[in-house]
């Protein structure tokens, strides 16, 4: 359970951006969360409520964009999306350890006024 710390970090970035842009309020955060980011979405939502209390982002909405895992198969020289946590190429069944997408934990937009 480290979602509170992660959201605290996201909030600091959002508040700094709001201030830099002369805004008094943060109304929403949009984040991209990779399937391998190791965070629980429900815990993130709860964490946002906790960390935004008494800040310019109090009551802010959280929009989440889920990023699926995408791997590179060195045999077929193509990317593929695994169905589960065994990253086996659907064409040649080679196991991939080359993860091209899915570890994201990014703040991509803030709604301010």
């Amino acid at each position, binding site marked *: 359970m480290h979602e509170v710390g992660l959201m605290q*970090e996201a909030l600091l970035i959002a508040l700094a951006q709001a201030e830099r842009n002369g805004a008094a309020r943060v109304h929403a955060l949009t984040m991209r969360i990779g399937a*391998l980011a190791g965070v629980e979405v429900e815990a993130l939502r709860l964490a946002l409520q906790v960390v935004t209390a008494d800040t310019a982002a109090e009551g802010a909405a959280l929009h989440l964009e889920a990023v699926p895992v995408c791997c590179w198969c060195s045999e077929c020289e193509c990317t593929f999306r695994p169905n589960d946590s065994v990253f086996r190429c659907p064409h040649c069944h080679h196991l991939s350890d080359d993860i091209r997408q899915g570890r994201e934990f990014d703040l991509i937009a803030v709604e301010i006024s």
Partner: protein
Amino acid sequence: MSEPGDSMQPSHRVLHLHERVLGRNQEQAALNRELFRQAGVTVVNVLSAPGSGKTALLERTLTDLKSDVRAAVIVGDLATDNDARRLCRSGAPIVQITTGTLCHLEASMIARAWNELDLAALDLLFIENVGNLVCPAAFDLGESLRVVLTAVTEGEDKPLKYPTLFKTANIVLVTKLELADACGFDRSAVRKNIGEIAPQAEIIELSARSGHGMAAWYTRMRGLIHAYG
């Protein structure tokens, strides 16, 4: 997925960013890595669930390598310095980080802890992370290598249950091998599971208690020092 502008009031505006939330940790980890490189210290991040044998592994490793490897440990725990006191018996330099409620170590904590160590007098630095198979996965500390432990007492399916962490491992150690028979542990099943979840990882089975398999671990650590040092 809803977008921030879906029902946006006219006075609101949207700033588009591309900020990695863990950006600060990643920057500090890069600084740590550069400092360790300049000092010629190989840094090994040791991760597992609580009770998989991290401290026992390091206790024996420090003692057995003492004659030819200058090693130290930074050890993270939520509370108590029990692990640090166990490790201190080897005579190696030990730095305890007590994280309080935090379930993992971060790069900035390592940066503070290294001030207590004489890096110029070290070949190998182990970081014993907080016992946790979830949270530490996303936090780069600046290490050269990640080692994940799974004990035979935990069953064969830990890699299947916690794939995110196992996928970051360079080496997986199957520990407490002396208990394998008593637990009815299936060694080929755990190898298959690790191989499927973490095909990049080297697997070493060992027992810090009996010493079985420790030679392979030491060979690997000595090879690392040679490669990074």
